[in-house]
């Protein structure tokens, strides 16, 4: 089933926001010395890291550490006070938010951000917006001018994503009426519909039960392994992070306190200290993940 979806993925066309080809060891995304201030609050202080093409890259850290702020800087919601963010070798700082989809950056949100009154199908179709051509005039003419053909073509694509994420049974429901877990899944579907090169996931498993988490983990693995996306993820569930990630960085009070492979990060003294103030749950998870790794 997965392969079928993969097979229909069109190669990204040249000129569609591609800023020159990457050399094999050039990072897809490079964050350089980014700082972000809200009045007196330093949400981020001189954070640097690089995300390689095809990897699953995670940001962890206690509540309020600045993880979402980092994602918001990349997606353009916040503007760093200092530093630069390079995507495919070119600065993202001057690009508007609505350029992101065309550049190949998609994201999901920590607090659900679906179009509540639209059907699941339509929500996901919005992800195709940037690659569709029909407009208000040809859309109104529908039968003449190609809108119908294009809509049906894109719908077929969206159905593949729907099948892959196993949400066919709710495809006609208004997104706002779905359960939390399903809505998270629809958000992932919508972000996947963008066909991004870089997909940003803000706590994709928050509020899910074990079964839902397992499903979500499968999907996240597929993002890179089958769809060729690069995944950047924020997640509190340590087990998930350590299992899925190729590399991890740890933020605490807006600073990067550690980074590396999951094993390296777990062994890091700073990390343990940063989490000491947290609930036992997190510490237990850390310990459990360490045991597994050992």
């Amino acid at each position: 089933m997965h392969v079928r979806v993969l097979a229909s993925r069109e190669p990204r066309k040249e000129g569609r926001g591609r800023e020159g080809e990457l050399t094999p060891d050039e990072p897809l995304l490079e964050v350089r010395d980014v700082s972000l201030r809200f009045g007196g609050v330093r949400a981020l202080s001189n954070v640097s890291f690089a995300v390689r093409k095809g990897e699953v890259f995670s940001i962890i850290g206690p509540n309020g550490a600045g993880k979402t702020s980092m994602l918001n800087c990349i997606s353009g919601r916040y503007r760093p006070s200092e530093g630069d963010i390079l995507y495919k070798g070119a600065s993202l700082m001057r690009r508007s938010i609505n350029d992101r989809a065309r550049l190949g950056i998609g994201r999901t949100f920590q607090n659900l951000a679906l179009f509540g009154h639209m059907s699941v199908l339509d929500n996901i179709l919005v992800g195709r917006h940037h690659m569709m051509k029909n407009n208000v005039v040809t859309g109104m003419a529908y039968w003449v001018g190609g809108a119908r053909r294009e809509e049906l073509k894109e719908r077929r694509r969206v159905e593949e994503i729907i099948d892959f994420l196993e949400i066919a049974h709710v495809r006609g429901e208004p997104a706002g009426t779905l359960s939390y877990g399903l809505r998270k899944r629809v958000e992932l579907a919508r972000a996947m519909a963008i066909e991004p090169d870089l997909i940003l996931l803000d706590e994709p498993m928050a509020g899910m039960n074990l079964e839902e988490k397992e499903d979500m983990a499968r999907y996240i693995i597929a993002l890179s392994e089958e769809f060729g996306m690069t995944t950047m993820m924020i997640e509190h569930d340590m087990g998930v992070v350590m299992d899925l990630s190729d590399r991890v960085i740890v933020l605490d009070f807006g600073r990067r306190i550690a980074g590396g492979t999951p094993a390296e990060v777990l062994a890091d003294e700073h990390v343990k200290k940063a989490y000491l103030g947290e609930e036992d749950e997190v510490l237990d998870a850390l310990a459990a993940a360490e045991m597994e790794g050992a």
Partner: protein
Amino acid sequence: MAHVPNPRPAGDFRTSYAADTALFRTRLEGRLTLLLVLAALSVPLWGSNYLLSQMILIGIYAIAALGLNVLTGMTGQISLGHGAFFGFGAFASAYFSSKGIPVLIAMPLAGLLTTAVGMIFGIPAARLKGLYLAIATLASQFILQDFFARAAWFTGGSYGSLAETASLFGLMINNDARYFYLVLFWVVVSFLMVSNLARTRDGRALVAVRDHYLSAEMMGINLTRYRIMSFGISSFFAGIAGALYGHYLGFVSAEGFTILLSIEFLAMIIIGGLGSVSGSLLGAAFILLLPQVMEVFAGTLAGIFPSIAQGSAYIKQMSVGAAIILFLVLEPEGLIHRWRLMRASWKLFPFSH
């Protein structure tokens, strides 16, 4: 908003994606609409002049309400100036036709010019939301009213302007029966246009902007562009409707295009159902017919209690206001929602209790 659980009857499975994108939710809805249009076609053959004139006005208001529904229902932007755009369309078409342009061409031209004007007045929407946008659109209402009064070259100033009679291949559209067909044509075309918009890229973008503008932007939707575009679309239909209105009366004067008309348009879409295409028609019919029903009612009442005879005019006025409040409180999703609920219970008919 509550939602009607899967309003499709059992057994009405959609077998292809094409069926999924169909114009109507159900085959029944499609057939009913077709039947309604066919029935409407026959009205000039048997209907009284009174009925015809009422249906013409309902059609005209329905087109304008439909436009407002794109702006307010689909995009979530309120406008208190829709009546002024309606008026602008009426003046524009009268103006074009006075310059020798055939009326049937002047009408869509008026629609396009109103689109442009609407987009200019829609520019504040790029930055303003909610109450602030409402005030900005109120300003456009008054600016346009002022323009109607001053731009005598365009509107005839305080005298108003004459609107030519439409003609098609030498056939004068000079009676209600013929004009009815002209209005019906525009009603059908307008409703098809908006229904198609709703199932294609830009229509979805408008709804996305309404439901969650932050994530809409992340999907590549340019908020400013769509917010202004929505004003353009709604003004187009206001302009067309205004043009039809002007040429129907044969005379256009500014008095009719006040804030009261704007509020009536809002009432139509609230009562009909925000964001509902067919609700726009129901709402227009309701707002147009309600005062007349109330007049009859007040007349009867005055027959029984002569002392309230003087107040009967107010009963008419008040009924519209009362209807809006009642709908907001009791049926915020409008008449169209009531209809769907009714249909849902018919479907289950023998087992619904």
